[in-house]
C-alpha cells in the first residue's frame, strides 16, 4: 500500500462539480500528512479536458478514464473505473463526496475492492499515521469517531464541509486508463431536470428555508426573493412539504436533506429536533421567528424575534443595498 490519496472527481455533462474540488483539496491535505501524492480520477466521456482544472485545484496527478460507455453515470461502470485507478496508484486511501452519485458509487466501489467505507463524514484526521474520521449518527444526536482496520480506507465526505482550494496555475501529469469488459446493467436512460436554475440545496453555501410560519405557498416569494438576493438555495420544513406547499426535494431534516452551508436562514420554522438534524452543522444560523421561545433560537447564531412578513422584506431590501 502506498502513501498517496486518490480522490474521485464528479462531473456531469463535462462539468466538474464543486465537490470535485472539495475532495481534491482534502486529498491534497491528507496526502501531505501521510507523505504521499494526491491523485484525482475523473470518469466520463469527452472529459480529458478537465484534468487541467483539477491540477489547478491541487491534484498532483490526474487519471482520466474516458470511454463512450461511461458518458452517463453508472455505479457498475464507474466502480470499475475507480478499481482501475486504485490498481494504478495503489493509494493509502480513497475519497469521494457524498452526493447522489457518490452515495451510490462509494458502497459499490468499496464492496468491489473488498474494503470498508466511512460515509457522509464531516471530519478527517491523521492519528499516528492512520486515518480517523468523525460522522454524525442517530440523526445528529451523537457523533461517532471511527478508525479503519481495513487495508484501504474509503471515505465519502459531506458536500460543502471541506473547503475547495483556490485556483492556481499549477499543472500535473495526466494518465489515461481504459477499462476493458465493462458490464453495465443498470443504465441511466434520462435525466429530467427540475424546473428553473435554482442553486442545489446540498451544494449551496447559503440556504434560505421556510416553515409553517409563512402561512401558505402564496407567500413563498419571501423565501424566493431572499434566496435570489443572496444567491442561495431554497429549503423547507417537513410541515410545509407535507402540506404540499413545497416539493419533497426541498425538505431539510432527518427525512429530507442534510445541509451544511456557511449560512442557513430559517424563516417561520420552529426548530423541531428532526429539522435540526438536517441543518445544525451549518456555519452560521439565522432564525426569524415571532416566538421568542421557539427551539430554533437555541441553535441560531443570530435571531430576530419578529413577524416574518415584516422582517423578511426589510432583510431583502438591506441585502440588495449591498
Amino acid at each position, binding site marked *: 500500500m502506498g502513501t498517496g490519496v486518490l480522490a474521485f472527481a464528479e462531473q456531469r455533462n463535462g462539468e466538474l462539480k464543486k465537490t470535485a474540488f472539495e475532495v481534491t483539496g482534502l486529498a491534497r491535505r491528507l496526502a501531505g500528512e501521510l507523505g504521499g501524492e494526491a491523485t484525482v480520477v475523473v470518469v466520463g466521456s469527452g472529459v480529458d479536458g478537465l484534468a487541467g482544472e483539477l491540477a489547478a485545484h491541487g491534484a498532483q496527478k490526474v487519471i482520466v478514464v474516458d470511454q463512450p460507455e461511461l458518458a452517463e453515470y453508472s455505479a457498475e461502470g464507474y466502480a470499475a473505473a475507480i478499481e482501475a485507478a486504485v490498481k494504478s496508484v495503489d493509494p493509502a486511501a480513497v475519497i469521494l463526496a457524498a452526493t447522489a452519485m457518490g452515495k451510490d458509487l462509494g458502497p459499490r466501489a468499496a464492496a468491489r475492492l473488498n474494503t470498508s467505507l*466511512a460515509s457522509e463524514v464531516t471530519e478527517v484526521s491523521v492519528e499516528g499515521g492512520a486515518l480517523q474520521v468523525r460522522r*454524525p449518527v442517530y440523526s445528529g444526536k451523537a457523533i461517532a469517531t471511527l478508525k479503519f482496520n481495513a487495508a484501504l480506507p474509503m471515505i465519502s465526505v459531506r458536500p460543502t464541509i471541506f473547503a475547495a482550494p483556490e485556483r492556481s496555475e499549477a499543472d500535473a501529469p495526466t494518465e489515461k486508463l481504459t477499462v476493458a469488459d465493462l458490464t453495465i446493467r443498470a443504465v441511466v436512460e434520462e435525466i429530467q431536470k427540475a424546473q428553473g436554475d435554482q442553486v442545489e440545496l446540498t451544494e449551496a453555501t447559503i440556504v434560505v428555508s421556510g416553515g409553517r410560519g409563512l402561512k401558505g405557498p402564496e407567500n413563498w416569494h419571501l423565501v424566493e426573493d431572499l434566496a435570489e438576493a443572496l444567491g442561495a438555495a431554497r429549503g423547507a420544513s417537513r410541515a410545509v412539504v407535507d402540506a404540499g406547499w413545497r416539493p419533497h426535494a426541498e425538505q431539510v431534516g432527518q427525512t429530507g436533506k442534510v445541509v451544511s452551508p456557511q449560512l442557513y436562514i430559517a424563516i417561520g420554522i420552529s426548530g423541531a429536533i428532526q429539522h435540526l438534524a438536517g441543518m445544525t452543522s451549518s456555519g452560521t444560523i439565522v432564525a426569524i421567528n415571532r416566538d421568542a421561545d421557539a427551539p430554533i433560537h437555541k441553535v441560531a447564531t443570530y435571531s430576530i424575534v419578529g413577524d416574518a412578513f415584516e422582517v423578511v422584506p426589510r432583510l431583502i431590501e438591506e441585502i440588495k443595498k449591498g
Partner: protein
Amino acid sequence: MNFVVCIKRVPDTEARIKIAADGKSIDPTGVQFIPSPYDEFAIEAALLQKEKAGAGEVIAVCLGPAEASGELRKCLAMGADRAIHLKDAHAHRDPASTAAILAKAIGDLSPRMVFFGKSSADHGNSQVGVQVAERLGLPSVSEIVTLEVEGDTAKAHREIEGGVEIVSTSIPAVFTAQKGLNKPRKASLKGIMAAKKKTIEELAYDEAPEGLEIVSLDPPPERQAGRIVGEGADAVPELVRLLREEAKVI
C-alpha cells in the same frame, strides 16, 4: 422467484440518545426499538412486487440481536411469507461486514428482487443495499422513488441534485427505497394473528470482521448559545452588519 427485504432494528427516531458507559455505544435502557423507517417502504415494495408477479414469497431478513425477532414479526404481520433472523452476537457492525453476512444469506434464497431502506436510522450509512448488490453480482438502483416492472426489466426514478435520474435495469436486481416510493400498509388484525403462528428461521453469526471500528461516541458539540439581535424589522440592519462583518458570510 423470491422477493427479499432486509430490515434493521433501530431505536425509535423520537428516542433520546444516551451514550453508554463504554463510550462507544448507546444505552438501550428505556429506548423503544422499531424497524428502520425507510425499511417500511422496502417491505411494501416487496409485497407489491410479489402481488404483481402472482408468485413467489416475500422473505424478510434481519441481522441483529435476539430481540430483533420483534421487528421480523412485524414484517410477517404486514404480509411477509417467511422471516430469517441472522442472530448477531455483536451489537454493532460496519456496513461492509453487515453486507457480507446478508449477501451470503440472501444468495441462498435465489432472489428476483431485493429491497433495502436507503439508509438506516441509527448509523445512517446508506451503504448496505448497494454493497450487498455488488457482493451478489447484481445491478442496483438506490434511493428510488418510483418502480415499474415489465418482464425482466425494471425502471426506477431516483432523485439527484437538481433533477431526477431515470434508470432501467435487468432483473434480478437490488433496490434501496427512498421516502415516497409507496405508502406502507398497516398490519391487519388477521395479519398479526397469522404472524404469531409463523416460525422465524434462525441462524447464528459470531464473526467480528470490523473494517471500521468505533473509537468513541460523543454527544454533538453544543452550538454556542445564540444571540437575539433584536425584535422586528428594526433589527434587520444590525443583523446584516453582523452577517457581513462578524460572521463574514454574505
